[in-house]
């Protein structure tokens, strides 16, 4: 994994784990690798991984089982919100970019619809 050195590493690790969960590389209820293993895989400090996991646990995305390790939550509400939040984050970036180009909300919807259709065609064509 490549990190952006301007953004805190613990934050980027959280984003990475969110994504692993959303694309089902880490399935609900499955065990997350041990702290040191994650640190080795990502070539980062053990303390940094610990901070990421601590925050994910307090958000309820991971559940810590004493002596057994950390597991992805099976709570559907949390998992749905996770997906929703990640998508919303990307949309909010796009909205801000387009707004800075002085597009109105209606123009944004139109542009997005056209663009999605274009991508669909190239994908199927």
């Amino acid at each position, binding site marked *: 994994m490549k990190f952006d050195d301007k953004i805190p*590493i613990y934050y980027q690790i959280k984003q990475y784990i969110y994504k692993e969960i959303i694309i089902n590389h880490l399935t609900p209820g499955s065990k997350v690798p041990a702290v040191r293993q994650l640190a080795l895989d990502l070539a980062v*400090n053990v303390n940094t991984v610990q901070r990421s996991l601590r925050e994910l646990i307090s958000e309820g995305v991971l559940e810590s089982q004493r002596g057994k390790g950390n597991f992805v939550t099976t709570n559907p509400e949390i998992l749905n919100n996770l997906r929703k939040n990640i998508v919303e984050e990307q949309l909010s970036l796009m909205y801000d970019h387009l707004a800075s180009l002085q597009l109105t909300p209606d123009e944004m919807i139109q542009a997005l619809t056209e663009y999605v259709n274009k991508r669909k065609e190239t994908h199927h064509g």
Partner: protein
Amino acid sequence: MANLLTINHLSYSRNLQLILKDLNLELPYGQIVGLLGTNGAGKTTLMRLIAGNYIDRKNSISINTETNSAVRKSLVSFTEQVGGWSGHPRIFKIGNFYDALYEDFNLTTFNQLLSNLNLSPDQRVNQLSKGNFRKLVIAVTLARQTDLYLLDEPFDGIDSMTRKKIISSIIQWKPENATVLVSDHHVGDIANLLDQVVIIKDQHVAAQEAADTIRETLGKDIETYYEDFYREEL
């Protein structure tokens, strides 16, 4: 918990030249700390003083509250203390040598480190390439089980694959409570690894800052943060 390393008002001259002046530094347990500074800033001198290789006459340095430099020597694993064996021994002989020399040297860990770093115990030291010699120094240094590790420019002049191997070894073998102080002039090599950085400039600690604070509060990458200390005077 008390600090692992405390330095109060340390000054040091060599050949009538002042190298460090009124330097203060505190390091906690369980961190990886980058020691940054230009060539000649005094990084190596500071490490030698911490390790007890240079004598600090005023007892300004304490490790686990221990100020005696001879005792300190046994508490610190320093890359520069590796070497000085006679002849051209094979690597396994060097393992035996340090196993006899240091009570905290773990031969099993040493052999695991060798295998992780792709070094063969049968190789002779004089036949090692520069990169492989660096790897051997790291293996010896990390095979000791202690609280403070001083790695002086461990990535100097080695290729990126070797660097990755050394970084993995640090992550894998650092005891949880131990602190690693690693000096480097290419911060980018180790930026992802650091809990905090200490910048040596004008003979003292010009800055000490957590890596997350640099990124989160100042919005800078560590390399830019470091270089900005020098840009201001240009």
